[in-house]
């Protein structure tokens, strides 16, 4: 398949691995920021193709994983209402709140639907004028433009029974938080390819300069990821700390300005809590006041629902890259995708779920879990 097969080519992958081996002289710790990148790395076994001294740690870029428990409880409170059709991206259905998950709410009679785009919700709202249609707007800068568009169109078309529950977060403040956290080990980043397709790469330049870390904006296919690693290693070995773009087929330095304008017209920056990480200032979006009629948190008065995060579950440390999923004694035993203890096990993009789904709880060979 065009634009896929060439990025999954065995010979190209082998050449990149050879080149990484050739240029690497010291051990390096590199974080891939996106959940989608983690998924690909584990799915294709890329970390095992790399030299043992290149350690990949898995970053906070799984939107399902970082959505705080109290926001999930708020979503569930809305989804349980008989007057609501609650719409969500698919993998949010399995995320447990304090009392069950959306599957459970659906089984008990809640009207819960999986959508691929928030714009589908507008159709549902028009077809069900007697119901309130609520979309759970989670995610990074990647999903924000379409969510903003849905809100903007609902207002423009006077669709009064559509609202969104906003839990948007943004990547750059999270990278800063990781770099400033005590005991940080991350020396270079594979930057978030799809986030940068929207936002461009410029906002990463001050981070690279201030913290002296290379950031290579990287795609999601095996060859992309190996090339991204090679570019980070080359910078580290040469003592450079710059923003480079591996994902040139999708990312421009200025990003998608139309999408940015849509986000700016509907959302404004706010402080957000990240599951397992805590409050990060200015790390998310909320609806601007002029769109308050589309704000589900206000309409359904769920803002007062407060839930404390469970203290266990090392997902916070996994999300910051200081621990690996298999460092947790509960991994694969008490904590499985069927009975997740933490969000990193819930989403397919979560590091723990990626490890689990690709069988890394089953075997340990040569000190590397799942290496066979």
């Amino acid at each position, binding site marked *: 398949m065009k634009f896929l097969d060439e990025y999954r080519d*065995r010979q190209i992958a082998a050449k990149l691995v050879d080149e990484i081996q050739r240029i690497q002289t010291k051990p390096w710790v590199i974080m891939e920021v996106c959940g989608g990148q983690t998924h690909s790395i584990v799915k294709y076994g890329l970390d095992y193709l790399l030299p043992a001294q290149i350690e990949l740690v898995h970053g906070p870029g799984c939107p399902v994983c970082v959505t705080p428990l109290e926001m999930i409880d708020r979503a569930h409170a809305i989804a349980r209402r008989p007057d609501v059709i609650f719409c969500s991206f698919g993998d949010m259905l399995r995320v447990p709140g304090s009392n069950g998950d959306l599957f459970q709410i659906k089984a008990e009679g809640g009207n819960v639907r999986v959508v691929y785009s928030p714009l589908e919700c507008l159709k549902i709202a028009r077809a069900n004028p007697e119901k309130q249609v609520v979309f759970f707007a989670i995610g990074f800068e990647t999903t924000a433009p379409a969510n903003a568009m849905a809100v903007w169109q609902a207002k423009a078309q006077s669709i009064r029974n559509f609202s969104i529950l906003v839990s948007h977060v943004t990547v750059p403040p999270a990278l800063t938080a990781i770099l400033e956290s005590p005991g940080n080990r991350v020396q270079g980043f594979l930057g978030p390819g799809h986030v940068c397709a929207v936002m461009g790469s410029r906002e990463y330049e001050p981070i690279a300069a201030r913290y002296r870390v290379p950031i290579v904006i990287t795609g999601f296919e095996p060859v992309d990821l190996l090339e991204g690693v090679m570019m980070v290693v080359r910078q580290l070995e040469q003592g450079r700390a710059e923003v480079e773009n591996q994902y040139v087929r999708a990312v421009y330095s200025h990003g998608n300005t139309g999408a940015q304008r849509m986000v700016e017209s509907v959302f404004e920056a706010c402080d957000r809590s990240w599951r397992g990480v805590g409050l990060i200032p200015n790390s998310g979006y909320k609806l601007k006041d002029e769109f308050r009629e589309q704000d589900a948190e206000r309409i359904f008065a769920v803002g007062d629902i407060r839930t404390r995060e469970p203290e266990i579950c090392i997902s916070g440390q996994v999300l910051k890259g200081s621990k690996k999923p298999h460092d947790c*004694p509960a991994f694969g035993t008490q904590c499985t995708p069927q009975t997740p203890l933490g969000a990193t096990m819930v989403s397919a993009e979560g590091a723990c779920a990626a490890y689990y789904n690709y069988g890394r709880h089953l075997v340990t060979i040569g000190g590397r879990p799942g290496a066979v």
Partner: protein
Amino acid sequence: MSTTDPGFTLSCPLPINERKTIVLGHGSGGRLTAQLIRDLFLPAFGNEFLNKLDDQAVVHAGDARIAITTDGFVVTPLVFPGGDIGKLAVHGTVNDLAMSGARPLYLSAAFILEEGLAIEELSQIVRSMAEAAKAAGVTIVTGDTKVVNRGSADKLFVTTTGVGIVPDGVNISASNARPGDRVILSGTIGDHGMAVFSKREGLELEGSILSDTAPLHELVAAMIAAGEIHALRDPTRGGLATSLCEIAAGSRVGVEIDARAIPVRENVRGACEILGMDPLYVANEGKLVAFVERSAAESVLAAMRACPEGRDSVIIGEAVEAHGGMVLLKTEIGGTRILDLPFTEQLPRIC
């Protein structure tokens, strides 16, 4: 809760340890389904036939060995590209019998109809079912009809039971695979699941995807005539990966599969890429995976390719002594990963 490390305490409440209600995942064919069978059905019904957990039971009646299977069909929409619920019911039941090597003979059909269903819609399904039965050489010999209130069913559910005769000398079961066996797949994977999904979601994809629904008993008969078959499965719910896991576990053999050998149509692959799904876990309704005695593999493969349902057959891997019960996939780029049972239905990923 205790853990292996006394210094590490779990203060977090296990959110959903055991479910108190049925959720859709219990019907996914994955771990939740297996849990339900293990914890609820087997303790109540368990016996030497059921405990084998094959798609059919082979029982003795006098000198004859009879294969029996039953299957419920609840697919939405009732008509999809390449088939409909009636055709699917006949083929699914015929195929469950065929996977024991049996010659399918008779079917029963029970219809649960929702008040308000158009007679013409029912008639279309029934005609299609009759044609499929005739083409497959099976006779529908008994049946039942029930009507429920509007909202108590989704238009139409069909349950079919099938009976067939297992020829002498044939002994095929998911527990009979042996190290050294070659693993043969009868064609492309993912067609049925993605055809139904695209139609249900109203996806407009380039080039329509057709369900592969087809009866496989003639293909199986040709295979049996060509060489020694140890294990057979039709990878329906849960897809090829689930069938391979079930055979690996049932036979306590390791299985090694080459991802590059597995045929997937371009349009199916494209749809899976867009939707974030893995074709290895997508349902098929006209494919089988066979574990075949190594020395017979080439002749069985040739016999399969001579049948219309098996013309794209290919060897995708082998059974091995090592890592018993586990399926390893050599990835496209030369890595290795473990294929495991899905825990529930595949969920579309967010990005």
